[in-house]
Each structure stands twice: as C-alpha cells, then as structure tokens.
C-alpha cells in the first residue's frame, strides 16, 4: 500500500493516458459484444427457435432460461450498486467514497445490460413501444412485467440524475485538464453551473439517495423483480413472501462483488493503491460476508419450510434443491466465501486483495447460477407437474451463452469508454482523503479497525 497523497492528477490519469492493455481489453470486450450482436441478429432473423428454449408443459422445455436468469442477475448487480452508493452518501460512510461513483456507473451499465436482455428475450421486440406503451395505462395495474419496466426506467433516470448532479462539481474544477475533444459533453454536463449550487446539489443528492434507499427494498430488487415470480402460485419454488428479501440479498452480494472486481481492476490499471486502499477492499469484503450470511439464511428458510411437511408440489421443488448441482454448487460457493470472510476477521493476515477478488468472482458466478436455477426450476417443478413424459429439458444454446459474454463485454466497454471521459473517482473523495488524513498519514491502521467495526454496527 502506498503512502502517496491522492491528487487530481491521479483521477485524471485514465482520461489523459491510453495504453496497449486498454486497447487489448477494448478489443476483447468489443469482440464479445460483437459476437453476440451477430448471434442476436441471427436470432431476429430466425426467431427464438435458435435458443434452447421450448414451451413448458407438453412443449417439453422451459420457456424462460438464461436470458431471464441473466436479466435478473444484471438487474441485481445494478440495484445493489446504487444502493451501495446511496448508502455511502446517506450514512456518511466516507471511507467508500472512492468507489461510490464506480458503483453508480455499475448501476447504469448493469441496467443497460438488463434492458438489453428484455429486448433479446422478446419474440417481437419491435412492438415494445406500440404494444407496451400503448396499453400502459391498463397493464400497469396488473402486469408485474410492466411494473418492472416502469421501475427499471425510474431507477435508470434516478441514477443518471444522481450521477449528473455529482459530476458537475468535478468537471467544472478539472475542466482545464480534461481533453478538449469532449468539450461539448462537458459543456452539457456543466450547463448553468455556479459555485452557489454546490451546497444545494449536496442536499439534493442526499434526498435522491434517500429516495433510492427507500425504494430499493420496497420496489426494486426487494419488490418488482422478485414479484415477477413470487406472485405466481403455480410454481412452489417461486411463490411466496421470501423472494423479496432473498432477491435483495442476492442483489447486494453480487453488486458488492462487482464493485470489488471493478475497484481492483481500476486500482491495478492506474496505480490507485492510495485511493482505493486495501482498507476499502477489507470493508467491502465484510459487507459481502454480511450479505452472504443473509443470502444463506433466507435460503435456509426456504429449505426448511419446503422439506419439513410440505405440500406435494412444494416438497418436490425443494427436494431438487438438495441434489441439483446448479443449486448446491452456488450455495456451497457462497458458504465458502462466507467462511473465508469470517476467517479473515479472526485472522486478518488471511486477507489479500487477490482472495477478495476470487471471493467476488465466486459470488458473482454463484448468484448467476442460482438465478438460472431459480428460473428453470420453476418450470421443472410446477404445481401441475403431470407432464412427466415431456419434461423441461434445457441447455443454453451457443447464442444464449454468447449473450452472457456479450453483456459482460458491453459493461466492460461502458467502463472503458466512460473512464476516458469523466473521472470515475469523485473529486470529493480525493479532497476527503487529503483533508481527513493529510500528507504522510499512515492509512493502514485505523481503517482496518473501522472495517471490522462498521458492519457489526450496521448489522
């Protein structure tokens, strides 16, 4: 860990420099996205028959698969990201200020990927506007899918507003060092800026953060996304009140994992050891552990209720969880991560940044697979489970799998592009780091204490 003082130059480095690695990453990400776009074009031409999906029931398959599983996954990452960022502002968790904007950007990127999945999943994406908006006033009263579209849109707008408000401060002050070629962008972002607004914007952002924190559990990943499934009584694996909290924990674990990976990548790329400190990783890891615990706890609730003296359909749905690798794998993965995090609190030397990253990868993989299993198992174990001779066979087709790589590529591209235009670490964070700790301060010691303390307080 460096003892350098964070400077404006640090956060401008991504904008002012470009490396070979950058181009390679850009190319790989673009290739992944491009490959999927070609696949999608083929799908648009041929129809959804190119997927591994079929009709459930006598159709012998599952009608929702990886597209929907990945959709929830991305939405979860996105929602968790903004919750994280809002919590930092709202609760004054200043330590995480350097990664707050990364989390906000992750929300925009994740929502973009999720929105893309909605289109990809549809049989007639061309009718989105005419059919959905045209009947919105009727369908918004009934259809959880319309609630979803509504709330996702609302959140996108909210997050973008939030980001736009906070970015004005940075751009105005760093304008001289920012590349001239993006001047129109900067002009737009700082339209009508005056220093008098700083304090007002601060309060506005606080309120927006409050709105986000209130809405998230009520409406977002604790609400409309799980309600897509939880309101359908014909699927015992979906139906019920636990899905709201369960989804929220999944969203938060995956978002924290995402932020850990992003932070590590930026720290590695731009030598930000003194900005995104080990301390931040330790803190994030503890939060991850806390939400992993909640995740497992709610899974346990379902396993218990579904196996003690369940109804026939509920019993079958739960029994599969004890044996299916798509469920057992993720649960063991999360359990392992939780064990590791617990161990690091007892013996801090077990912590390394690499291990934190591995934990992040494991959790993201686990949440993706769990989401996929969640979607599929609904169709595998419906209440009306009579169609035994035409069971729900499914394996994602090449195009579906490429969609996953493609959307990851999309998100990577988003960060690669945004990092060249705006500072992905807030100027506030730099000022805060300097103001709080001053030049030559040893940051390792105190934050470690904080990081072990904070989650307990929150919990």
């Amino acid at each position, binding site marked *: 860990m460096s003892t350098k003082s964070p400077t404006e130059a640090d956060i401008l480095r991504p904008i002012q420099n470009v490396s070979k690695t950058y181009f390679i990453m850009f190319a790989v990400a673009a290739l992944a996205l491009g490959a999927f776009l070609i696949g999608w074009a083929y799908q648009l031409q041929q129809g959804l*028959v190119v997927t*591994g*999906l079929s009709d459930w029931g006598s159709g012998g398959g599952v009608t929702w698969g990886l597209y929907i599983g990945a959709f929830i996954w991305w939405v979860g990452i996105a929602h968790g990201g903004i919750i994280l960022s809002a919590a930092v502002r709202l609760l004054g968790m200043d330590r995480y200020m350097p990664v707050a904007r990364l989390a906000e950007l992750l929300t925009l990127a994740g929502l973009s990927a999720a929105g893309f999945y909605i289109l990809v999943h549809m*049989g007639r994406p061309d*009718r989105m506007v005419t059919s959905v908006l045209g*009947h919105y006033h009727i369908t918004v009263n009934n259809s959880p899918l319309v609630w979803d579209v509504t709330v996702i849109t609302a959140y996108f707008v909210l997050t973008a507003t939030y980001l736009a408000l906070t970015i004005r401060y940075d751009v105005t002050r760093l304008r001289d060092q920012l590349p001239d070629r993006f001047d129109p962008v900067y002009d737009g972002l700082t339209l009508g800026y005056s220093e008098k607004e700083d304090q007002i914007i601060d309060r506005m952002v606080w309120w927006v953060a409050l709105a986000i924190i209130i809405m998230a559990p009520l409406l977002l990943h604790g609400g409309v996304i799980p309600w897509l499934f939880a309101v359908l009584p014909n699927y015992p694996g979906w139906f019920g009140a636990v899905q709201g909290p369960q989804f929220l924990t999944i969203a938060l674990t995956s978002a924290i994992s995402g932020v850990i990976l992003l932070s590590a990548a930026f720290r590695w790329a731009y030598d930000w050891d003194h900005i995104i400190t080990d301390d931040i990783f330790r803190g994030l890891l503890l939060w991850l552990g806390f939400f992993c615990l909640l995740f497992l706890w709610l899974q346990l609730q379902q396993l218990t209720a579904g196996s003690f003296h369940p109804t026939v359909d509920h019993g079958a749905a739960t029994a599969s969880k004890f044996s299916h690798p798509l469920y057992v794998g993720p649960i063991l993965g999360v359990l392992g991560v939780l064990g590791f995090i617990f161990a690091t609190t007892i013996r801090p030397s077990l912590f390394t940044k690499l291990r934190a990253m591995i934990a992040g990868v494991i959790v993201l993989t686990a949440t993706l697979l769990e989401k996929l299993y969640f979607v599929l198992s*609904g169709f595998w174990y419906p209440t009306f489970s009579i169609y035994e001779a035409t069971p729900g066979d*499914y394996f994602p087709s*090449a195009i579906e799998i490429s969609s996953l790589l493609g959307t990851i590529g999309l998100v990577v591209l988003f960060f690669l592009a945004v990092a060249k235009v705006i500072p992905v670490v807030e100027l506030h964070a730099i000022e805060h780091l300097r103001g709080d700790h001053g030049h030559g301060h040893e940051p390792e010691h105190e934050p470690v204490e904080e990081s072990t303390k904070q989650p307990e307080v929150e919990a």
Partner: protein
Amino acid sequence: MSADDESFHPLGEEWENDLEGMLDDTEYDTDLGMAMAEDAMRVTRGELSEADFHEKYHEEVLEEFGEDNRPTQEAYEKAQEEAKGTVGRMLSRFDGDGEEPRRDVMKKMGAGAAAVGLGAWATVDDGGQEAVAAQDEEDDESGAPEGGEGDVQWGMAIDLERCDGCLSCVTACSSENNLDQGVNWMYVLEFEDPGASSSTSRNRLVRPCQHCTDAPCEKVCPTTARHTRDSDGLVLTDYDVCIGCRYCQVACPYGVNYFQWDEPDISTDEIAEFHEDMDGDHMTTDDGYGSERWVDSRAPRGVMSKCTMCPTRQDGQMGDEMVGTTACEEACPPDAIQFGNMHNESSDPQKYADNPARGRTLAQINPPSADELEEDLEGADEDLESVLEAADLDEEELALMIAVQITGGDEMGDGDGDVADLENDVTEALAAIESHGLGLANQEVLAELDLADEPDLDEPADGDEEGVDVDDEDADADDEAEDEEGEDEEENDDDEEENGDDEEEEDEDDEAFEPDEEAAQFLLEQFAGTPASNFKLLEEQGTNPNIIYLGNEPGPQAEQTEPTGTGVNYEDISYERADGESVEAVDNRKDVLDEGTVGDAGVSL
C-alpha cells in the same frame, strides 16, 4: 350447407320445408308465400329488381292481405334496417303491424346486412344472408355472442371416461388451425396416480385451454394482447399486439400455451385462400366492439398461441351451423367433448355435467325418427312386445328412451345444443309410440321395462290402453264436479271412473302413479355408468376454469406415462393442413424445436 338439393333457399330443402310448414299453419296462402320467397331470394341475388318484385305481387298481396305494405323503393332503406326474420313477422308486416322492436342482433348487422329466412330483404351485393338465417334460435337459446353483457361463456364438459384416446380431437384442432408440428393446442395424455385410490376408469386427461374466467395469463400480460372477449368469455391472444415475452405461458398453471418460436410452416395467404368461400379468413374476427382482431388460427412468428375454442366458428364465419361447435368437439367419435354456453343451464356441457349418465346414454342411443316409427308401427298391435318387434327396438332401448324422458323433467328439449336435439328426438319417438297406442306412462308397461314396481294385483290393470273411447263432455262435467267435491272423495271414486271416464282415470293414475325417477336414473347409470368424479382442473389456483371434467381427477402426484398417446400414439397420427401437406403429430415439441437450436449440445441441465 347442402348445395345439391333443389331448394331455392340457401339453407337447403329441409329448411325450406320447415318454412313451408310454418306457412301452412297460417291462414294465408302458402303457395303465394313460397313463390314470393323464391323471388325474394332472386332479389338478393340481383336477378330481380325490388321494384319488379313489388310490382309482380302487388295485386296478389292486396287480394290476400287486403293491403300491401311491403317496402317499396322509397321505403327500402328503412326496411333494410328493420329487416324481419321469421315468416310470421313477414306476414305481420303485410298486415301493417310492423312495430315490433328490432332485435339487437339485427341492428348490429347494419344496413347492408342480409335479411333472414323467407323475408329475404338484402342488398344485392351482400351474400351474407345465410349466416344469420337461424339467428332467432341463437339469440334466444344460447344467448349468442351478439347478445353481449356476459350472458355467454363458452366452455366444455369433457367426459374423460368416454374418451377412448383416439386423438381425433388433437388432429382436428391442429388441422383446423393449421398448427406447426408439436403445437398441440389440444393435448391428450394418460397418467399414473400413485396417490389416488384405485378406480376402475382410466387415468386420462384431455387438455385444451381452460378459458378461465379469472385467467392469470391475461392478468400478467404487459400488452393486453391476451384478453377475454366480453361477448363470450373466450380467452384469446391478439397476434398483432403480443410482444412475445411469454409471461402468459409462465403464469398459466395448466401449461396450455405454445409460443411460435420460428416462422410458421404455413403462410397467412395459404390459410386465407383455403377459407376463401368462408365468411372470413379464419384468422381475424370482430372483437365485439366493431374492430377486427387477429385471434384465430396459428400464430405468426414471435407471439404466443393456444387453444382458442374456435372464435371464428362462434362468430358465424364458418356458417351458422358451426356456431356453438369446436373442431375438437365435432371430431370426437364418442362425444366425450360437450361444448356450449356455461351460463346456460340447458346448454350441452351443463346438461351433460348435470347428469352424466343421462348425457352418455343420449350420446349412445340412436332414437328412431318419428316418421320411421309411424311407418314401422302401422298395422302392428298396441302391446309392448308387438311395438318393439315392429319398431325393431329392444326393451332396453325403449326403457332408456323413457328413462331419458323421465329424468329430463320440465327441461326436456330445452336449449339448442346437441343434447337438446337428442332429447327432442327421444320425445318425438316416444310420442309416435304413444300415439300408436302403447301407453308409456302406464305402470304395467313401465314395470315391464324395469322403470316401475309391478302394479298392485288387486287393481284392475287393463282398461287403460283398451278403453280409449273418451267422452269429453262427461269428463269435463265430472272434472268440475270432482273439483267441487274435493280431494277426500277421490279414494272412493274408483267405481264411478270405471264406468266410462277414462280421461279422468288416467289423471287419477298419474296422480297415484308418478314415474319412478329413481328407477329411471338407476337404469341410465347401469347402462352408461357414472363418472368417478366431477371436477375442474386446479380449482385451488383461483382461475375459475370453464371446463368441467368427468372422470378421474389427477392428484398432485399424477405423472404422465409414456408413450404419451393413449388409445393411439402421437407418432402414429397425422393431420392435414390448408396447404395440403400432411404433418406427423409429435407429443414433445422440444424434439422439433431442437432442430433450430444453435449449438444444440444434446444435453440438459
């Protein structure tokens, strides 16, 4: 519709004869009526101008009716709107009594629509007159869709114990709707049910869409593409609106939806061409609010489809005789599917589900026609044995017919469905036998048919049939007298009645001897059996399905057995589509769809 008889009326000779009969019943000249009717048809075909028509019959009409209020050229527009249906109404118009309220349905036909029955006032270029010819009956009995306001809810009673698993319904549906391979809107399966108590009947399920009153598929639809028609409760998909999110399929607890994953095998042009001579294209139909929606036949690529219960049939596109029918019902050899208005107590499904043994009996016995019977019975004796012999009936057949009548009660023949038709056949056949002289309400006869106890030996048992010389005047007098005397006297009246008041005696017998409904029901149940249960599928899901099943209800542990076909295997049947292609049926659609999967790994998660 018969095209080869020589009738002038588009509905054929039988219809024409019926109408002629109706004219005969009036005090007016039948020949004139028929001649005018024939020429009225010529007017509709454009072979005769209305003015000429008016001119041609003016004098005769004046002579017959004393006035001629027929629509003339000037009154034509008004007349179109007030086009009248039956002969009776037609005649009443001649009388100048044209003030009857117009029926809603006629209003909806609009000014250009066709006239009805014999009173065929129609625009020359509109060939739709036949479609509404029997509208009267539809209106009154089934409360046809145009009646609106929730009085029609199409649905079915499906007798799983009568189903022989031949899959005729599956192929008929696929053929009628030009479905792709594996798209089995109608699906029949056999299942094992480890949790169920042993039952003698087969575990079989016939599974069309349940057309739920509270359809969850509709509730979750983000576009209103999945909708319930107000006019008749059918749950349909607007193929022009659906975005293919498949949420309806997810929300449906029955698994009846089929997504169109790729380009359908048959084009809309081919479908339209195939139905060229139909009053519609078998795809689009009026939604009840005046706009056409594409809701029938196979779906286009990227949208959802499922069993529709044949809306274009219900809307009269395939001819009036097809209203109230579905392709699967029509194709079912053992009549296991009864389609009709679930809101009407006398509809086929309601009557059938109300008394399945009786419904099954009706579907199985073939009552001889009254005419045939009259012919056969001519010259035969009036006793039971002779009647049976002459009519070529066995005792059981007659007993079943009587049992059907006894259990039918006041509702016998009510309604306009197949069940009602069969009931009427039975009534007519029995009436023919009775008018020949065999007293079917007679205790002795019924006892012989196991429909009553043996009559008390102390009472004279003959006389009823033989003593047919009724003295009406005496009877009337006696009736009055007896009414005054009151009931107390009745028991002591026997002698008096014996002396020549047969009608009174019959009345007395009827009072003393009620037909034994229990015995009749027992006979029906012995013959046709009673279903193991009467259920709706997954009622606990709160969907309010509109299909009543008769037979074994699949329990929560029920599992489909292989091969999926029941009487016949899916792979052994095929159906023909409008393009003439024969398609082999497939029970598991995934097998078909896998061919289009990119990078199909051949494995499953």
